[in-house]
């Protein structure tokens, strides 16, 4: 087995989770695929010095690549415009799904990159210790960061939050 086989096996094993995470993070499923490929190339070019947690390394690198891409995209938005939507099937369902996605993406985009990373990594099953390493925080503080992010995201999605319940 070659090194590229090993790297491919590693990325493939976490591919579905990585694409879901990146699609949520960026709001662009095609971009998520691009970023998975860039992550794979980064794995080959500059593998981590610390090999204790390759899955966390993949997600951290993918997050950094997504942030780099977002900064670049922000600078050139006016030149290129937005991507076109996928081909429609049932118009009513397409509209409904598009509205739901737009709302979720807007709510996610309202979070800071740090909170978004923490929350979406939790959704992928990462432990607080791993999230802490990825966002540069203490493990103890991750619970607070996540709770705050959940409340903000919940508000953006119209989900009742503990604060709202208390005021009733």
């Amino acid at each position, binding site marked *: *087995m*070659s*090194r*590229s*086989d*090993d790297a*491919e096996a590693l990325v*493939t094993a976490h*591919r579905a989770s990585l*694409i*879901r995470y990146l*699609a*949520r993070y960026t709001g*662009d*499923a*095609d*971009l*998520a*695929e*691009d970023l998975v*490929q860039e992550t794979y*190339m980064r*794995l*080959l070019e*500059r*593998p981590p010095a610390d*090999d204790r947690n390759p899955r966390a390394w993949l997600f951290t690198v993918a997050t950094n690549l997504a942030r*780099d*891409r977002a900064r*670049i995209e922000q600078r*050139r938005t006016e*030149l*290129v415009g937005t*991507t076109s939507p*996928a081909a429609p099937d049932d118009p009513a369902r397409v509209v409904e799904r598009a509205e*739901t*996605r737009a*709302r*979720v*993406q807007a709510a996610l985009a309202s979070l800071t990159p740090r909170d978004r990373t923490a929350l979406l990594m939790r*959704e992928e099953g990462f*432990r*607080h210790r791993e999230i802490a390493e990825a966002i540069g925080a203490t*493990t103890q*503080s991750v*619970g*607070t960061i*996540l*709770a705050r992010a*959940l*409340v903000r*995201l*919940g508000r953006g*999605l119209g*989900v*009742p*939050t*503990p604060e709202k*319940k*208390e005021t009733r």
Partner: protein
Amino acid sequence: MNGTADAITGHPDDGALLRLIDAECDAGERTELEAHLRVCRRCRDRFDGVRGLSEAVSERLRVGDMPVPRRGRSLAPLKAAAVILLVGAAAAGAQPIGRWIARLAAGPSPTVVSPPPSSPSVPSGATRAAHAGVSFVPTGSTLTVVLRAWQRAGTLTLVAGRDSTAAFGVSDGSAPPGVTVLPSGLVIANDSAGSASYRLTLPPEIERVSVRIATAAPRVIARPAGAGPETIGLGGAGQ
């Protein structure tokens, strides 16, 4: 409460409740929190509220997930690039980059395969156009071009084309040691002493090109408008 309580109210904060929900507490904190929840109705309600919020947010995220990308891109075509990258790194005296990956698999020692000498590597789906370069069908709206090093001189020229394929060629200078066509772009295994210039003709589907040279941040270039080419220098890290 020790380290988990709100400094003002004395009740556990949301972070502590979430640690309990996520099974992230150590034994001492868990015992302390569970004891408090047994006697504090307000915190039990809040615990239920945080847990309900967590579940509701997860559900909304799932509902809002985008469909599977239009094309499920295999990583397999990238393996050809990997071979060239690995060979290039070894030739440049770089760190033994296979060590970490090999350890993950705990398999036999990795094998390095030499790329074909001075000829482009063209995975399936692409065609080779003799010495002039390659043409291929890119995926997505962004084409990625990776040059492994800054060169002594040379340029990359982007031209808007009308075909559904992209065409890549060496327009002057010596041929690069290896060019690999990826599903999303190209990896050019040039070297720092090179002075080759490259020309890339873009199909209408490509809206932008992301050019990364060595370890520099990717530079995103919008598709050239009209027939006018876009040219960037490849010489020296200062450009």
